[in-house]
């Protein structure tokens, strides 16, 4: 369960757009960058994560300056059963990481955590529901939680399209096609006529955009749906490859995505080689 939906026995400070309103106007966010930027490069496995913590709640900041709370950055990778925590009392943090320790989905998040007992805490910015209340924190309690960022670390630079295989199927009607998302590949089964048409459109740069606007868009949609719902695909090559694509477009799928949301992302993935390419040709 994501933290933003979780109930805590104390107020938790979050980012402005988290939907959690324990605090009225204060927020906790962070800026994050990786150097060198391309995390999928294999030449060197050393990277630095630069994190700048931005907390606007005066009372929480006071706890950090008194060293009763600290900023932490969590670097988590389920695939390599790794969960590392980096603590600091400064709002800027440089974290060295070795990509040899991680593979697949890398989850980065930040928190502000109590490091000692805090007996009485309150803030002038707490939601009215808490007005007049004081809270106590034990070591380890989360005072603030930042949004999670996902990165993808992989051995090879595998392009999404290289995972797609197109096969003819005698079981399908001439104009039908079926998309099967597997861990290692995406298989598209096609009826005879559409398979021929696909080959025709694919072979010509002028007609290729029509494929991106139709079948390729459908493939992206199916994959997005599959990775949102199928546990078997977690950390599969297909998931890791689409996450790379999502990172390029700065896309984070919500916890319970609906068809419209996923369809919107699929359209963005194919826009450059579909609508944009055709628009340029027709000078629109």
């Amino acid at each position, binding site marked *: 369960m994501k933290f933003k939906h*979780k109930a*805590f*026995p104390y107020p938790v400070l979050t980012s402005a757009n988290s939907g959690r309103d324990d605090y009225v106007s204060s927020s906790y966010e962070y800026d994050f960058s990786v150097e060198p930027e391309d995390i999928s490069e294999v030449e060197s*496995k050393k990277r630095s994560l630069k994190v700048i913590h931005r907390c606007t709640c005066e009372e929480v900041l006071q706890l950090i300056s008194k060293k009763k709370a*600290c900023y*932490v950055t969590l670097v*988590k990778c*389920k*695939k*390599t*059963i*790794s*969960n590392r*925590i980096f*603590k600091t009392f400064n709002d800027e943090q440089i974290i060295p990481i*070795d*990509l*040899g*320790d*991680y*593979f*697949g989905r890398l989850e980065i998040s930040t*928190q502000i*955590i109590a*490091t000692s007992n805090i007996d009485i805490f309150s803030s002038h910015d707490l939601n009215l529901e808490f007005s007049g209340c004081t809270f106590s924190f*034990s*070591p*380890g*309690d*989360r005072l603030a939680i930042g949004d999670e960022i996902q990165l993808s*670390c992989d*051995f090879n630079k595998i392009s999404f399209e290289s995972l797609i295989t197109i096969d003819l199927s005698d079981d399908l009607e001439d104009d039908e096609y079926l998309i099967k998302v*597997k*861990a*290692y*590949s995406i298989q598209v089964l096609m009826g005879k006529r559409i398979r021929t048409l696909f080959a025709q459109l694919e072979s010509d740069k002028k007609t290729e955009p029509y494929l991106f606007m139709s079948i390729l868009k459908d493939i992206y949609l199916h994959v997005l749906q599959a990775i949102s719902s199928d*546990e*078997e695909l*977690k*950390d*599969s*090559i297909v998931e890791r490859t689409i996450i790379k694509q999502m990172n390029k477009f700065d896309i984070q799928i919500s916890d319970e995505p609906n068809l419209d949301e996923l369809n919107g992302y699929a359209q963005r993935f194919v826009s450059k080689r579909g609508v944009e390419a055709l628009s340029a040709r027709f000078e629109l």
Partner: protein
Amino acid sequence: MKILSLDSLEKIENFLDENPEDTVLVDDFSYAVELLGLRFIDSEYELPIENVNLISSEKDENLLKNEQHNCQSIYSNFSSLTPADATDERLWSTLCFMQLSSYVKKRWPLSKRKSSKAGHIKNHYLIKNNRNMLRDNAISRLWWLGRLANICKGVEPDAAYDILLVNSDLRNNLLERTGTSSNENVLEEIFKIMKEGFDKGIEWNRPSSREFLKSINFVFGKSNLAVLDQESIGNILRPLFDKAFKPKEKRLWPFK
């Protein structure tokens, strides 16, 4: 070292789906390579496979001792692998089908299978997901258990193996509750507390063990224990162990 390519693994999976009772992959892998057109690619792995000495015994009483020996043999000989390398399904499947196949065949004999032959081969020779990599693949599970036993600085590997191999339920729970066990300092305290308890004569039992790990997860939901120092983590976890393993009072009818 040459390893099977990804498309070859997929071919193997498809073959097993279509021929669920065919055992050619286990019986004669060289023939299967030709039959399915499997491809090998060069990898950067340079592993002293010839130094690996795996024991497989039919006798159950030696199983735990053998498991520890095998984990240590794989982990120490393959110490050049990073955790990222050790997620490579191509490497583990190649070792299962080829260089270490005689061990795999004896340790996970097809004749003792509970599922279909295809299911059995997929489970112990291939890697479908993370759970499968940690628990079922005949060789990768040894490396990952070896790693778990060797990563905690404050616990000797022998002591860690005593906990990890006490029961598969405990091991699986530790591996699957990654929220807790993936924090090395928390795992270290879990090992220490359990070892201390078992050395004092407390007997492992499934409900108490599950309750202990569940209660750690519960505490983790509210507090991030991994930020604390070893002593503080121990102070929080020890009462949870005592409570979980405290002999339960028998409740006699009528309940009050």
